[in-house]
């Protein structure tokens, strides 16, 4: 532990706000976080990777256990077959939950690298490690695609006039939507793994000689030709920027496809142009929440206290606050447009998703994604202590789970009827569905598999981006301005 010097008095700090910063006279809030000296960083992190704390062992085993539960639930669900797609609603909700949260997590590293945020550096690798979950996403996606009802002709009539289920595909030929969506999902996985690989390459190259066993050969294979020449660095940086931009576009597009095909077009009469942007916003919100949660766990229980300062939480929680507000804003924009219009179909959809069938879940979601996290995130005190954002993150993640049940499970439950009128008006309004035991297993398994894969990823790759930390240490200096000592941050072009 470094010296504890808080010019504002220690009361507001948990004693670790300025780990590694031995700067006696600065006007330092948590914002003024100084990256620790980088000399022993590589070996230090390798050391930490090897010695796992109790909590992380528990996470590993709990993740494995939950995954097994999920597999059991999935197999038993499989016994029902795919002929009745309505039973797959909760499975799809679980898949979409994992997809939403983990697919946008790698983007955080790219986005904050693009904005040259200094505080992102300890969070970068954590966010990139979620790229590993993208493989899980592909696996989870296959049953969901099979369960997706045919996009045309829900009543099975031969007359083309009855092709009434709306779809964003407009009869695009050639295996839409399944194959296109699957290709998009694979593309996302390849792209995010590419980001992870490029970003981790310098770190792997540095520790490839010190590693033993499996990881040594892995590192050597993956970073064999990296010697850190200037040209290699330029290629790496440009590659990260391009891959990040491409990943962003592909991700937003995939979110648009998933939420339109698996939710909107299944609910009769639901024509809601804000849903894809809304889904993207909550995805960013959830992605940032899960990153902060993991970072906090690593900082608090994983022994990374000196490396992950409070500054990332302080700054990221402002971003999380912005995303939380945006989430509520989009929700309100949707609600007010439908509610004010008083069209029958829109009233029915509002009643189904918000005020009648899913009333309880809707309010619970609103509390978990807005009313509880908002005061936490607004409070400077909670943000300064570092636990504010992760605590809000927990609530947000629970709220997003409820959101996925409310939207995706509801969509699958409402997608069939004998009545033609129903396909235009969603009348009579269907009742809410409840999960059975297997559904609960599947949801738990979805949470478990993320924990498991992330934990394995932490063991496999350095969980802190060492090169970014070192780069950060180069671009910072503590200097005197007039009478105070301040942090100076360099922003290279």
């Amino acid at each position: 532990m470094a010296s504890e010097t808080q010019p504002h008095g220690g009361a507001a700090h948990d004693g670790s706000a300025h780990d590694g910063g031995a700067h006696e006279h600065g006007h330092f809030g948590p914002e003024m976080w100084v990256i620790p000296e980088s000399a022993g960083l590589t070996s230090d992190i390798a050391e930490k990777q090897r010695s796992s704390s109790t909590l992380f062992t528990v996470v590993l085993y709990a993740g494995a256990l939950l995954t097994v539960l999920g597999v059991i639930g999935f197999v038993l669900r499989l016994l029902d077959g795919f002929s009745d797609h309505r039973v797959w609603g909760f499975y799809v909700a679980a898949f979409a939950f994992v997809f939403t949260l983990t697919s946008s997590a790698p983007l955080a590293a790219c986005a904050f690298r693009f904005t040259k945020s200094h505080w992102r550096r300890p969070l970068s690798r954590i966010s990139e490690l979620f790229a590993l979950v993208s493989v899980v996403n592909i696996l989870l996606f296959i049953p969901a695609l099979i369960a997706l009802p045919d996009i045309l002709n829900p009543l099975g009539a031969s007359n083309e006039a009855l092709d009434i289920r709306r779809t964003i595909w407009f009869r695009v030929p050639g295996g839409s939507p399944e194959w296109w969506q699957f290709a998009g999902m694979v593309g996302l996985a390849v792209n995010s793994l590419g980001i992870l690989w490029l970003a981790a390459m310098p770190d792997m190259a540095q520790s490839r000689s010190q590693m033993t066993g499996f990881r040594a050969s892995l590192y050597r294979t993956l970073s064999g030709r990296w010697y850190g020449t200037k040209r290699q660095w330029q290629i790496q940086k440009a590659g990260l920027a391009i891959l990040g931009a491409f990943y962003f576009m592909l991700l937003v597009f995939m979110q648009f496809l998933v939420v339109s095909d698996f939710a909107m077009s299944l609910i009769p009469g639901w024509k809601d142009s804000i849903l894809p942007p809304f889904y993207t916003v909550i995805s960013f919100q959830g992605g940032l929440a899960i990153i902060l949660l993991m970072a906090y766990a690593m900082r608090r229980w994983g022994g990374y206290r000196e490396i992950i300062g409070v500054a990332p939480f302080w700054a990221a929680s402002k971003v999380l606050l912005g995303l939380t507000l945006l989430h509520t804003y989009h929700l309100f924009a949707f609600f007010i447009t439908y509610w004010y219009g008083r069209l029958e179909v829109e009233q029915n959809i509002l009643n189904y998703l918000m005020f009648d069938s899913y009333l309880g879940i809707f309010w619970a979601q609103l509390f978990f994604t807005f009313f509880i996290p908002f005061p936490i995130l607004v409070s400077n005190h909670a943000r300064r202590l570092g636990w504010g954002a992760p605590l809000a993150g927990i609530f947000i993640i629970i709220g997003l789970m409820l959101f996925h049940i409310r939207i995706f499970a509801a969509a699958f439950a409402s997608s069939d009827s004998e009545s033609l009128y129903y396909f235009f008006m969603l009348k009579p309004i269907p009742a809410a569905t409840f999960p059975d035991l297997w559904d609960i297993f599947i949801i738990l398994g979805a949470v478990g598999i993320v924990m498991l894969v992330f934990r394995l990823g932490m063991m496999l790759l350095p969980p802190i981006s060492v090169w970014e930390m070192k780069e950060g240490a180069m671009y910072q200096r503590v200097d005197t301005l007039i009478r105070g000592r301040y942090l100076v941050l360099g922003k290279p072009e």
Partner: protein
Amino acid sequence: MVVDLDKCTGCQACVVACQAENNIPINTKDYFLQRRAYEWIRIERYWEGEYPNVKARFMPVLCQHCENAPCEPVCPVYATYHNEEGLNVQVYNRCVGTRYCINNCPYQVRMFNYWHPNWPHRMENQLNPDVTVRSRGITEKCTFCVQRIRRGEIQVEARAGQRLDDNRIAAGNYDPACVQACPTSALMFGDLNEPNTAIKPYFDDVNNYPGHHEHERETRGYRLLEEMNTRPSVIYLKKVDQYPLADKGAH
């Protein structure tokens, strides 16, 4: 009001009657060229089929006096609102001319006075004294001839020598001009609070079988743009073609 499309011949008598009754400015050639000619009740004419195998379809469209009127909540000054009789009324003196109600009316029956209304001098004497002449810059629309309803009330009150209660005024005392003028009785008007008006069965039927029970209706009744959920007080009766066109085109 009930509009029987089967009986409508498209003769425009209702339009003329309305024009005269409600002091609507004369639609001159200029007004038509400016696309500002307006009628409170208009006969929409649609062609069905291809020449020579062709039929004209007529549909009188007037203010539907929706129970759930989209024009009402958007008026900032309550110039349009529901009165206790269920009429969608327009208060000319309040109107400031935002024209939001015109935009939010799916039936396009609200009209804006772009010019000051002018009549030839010798025609000014024929203006209906019961109806305001609207100045320019305000929105106006069909009132179901509210002045006739009021006059009917006054007459009945005068005859009975006492205040009117809801059930006193008999049908026929307050028919709007268009209803009165219709030669084929395609338009029917009545008070829904009265139990035995001629229009009541149609409303009961349409109200009993809304939306997803539409095909169970016993009469030919339907509402215009029913999916808008505006609940109009005008019901249309479908045309039943005795000699349908050989080649069914879109109508």
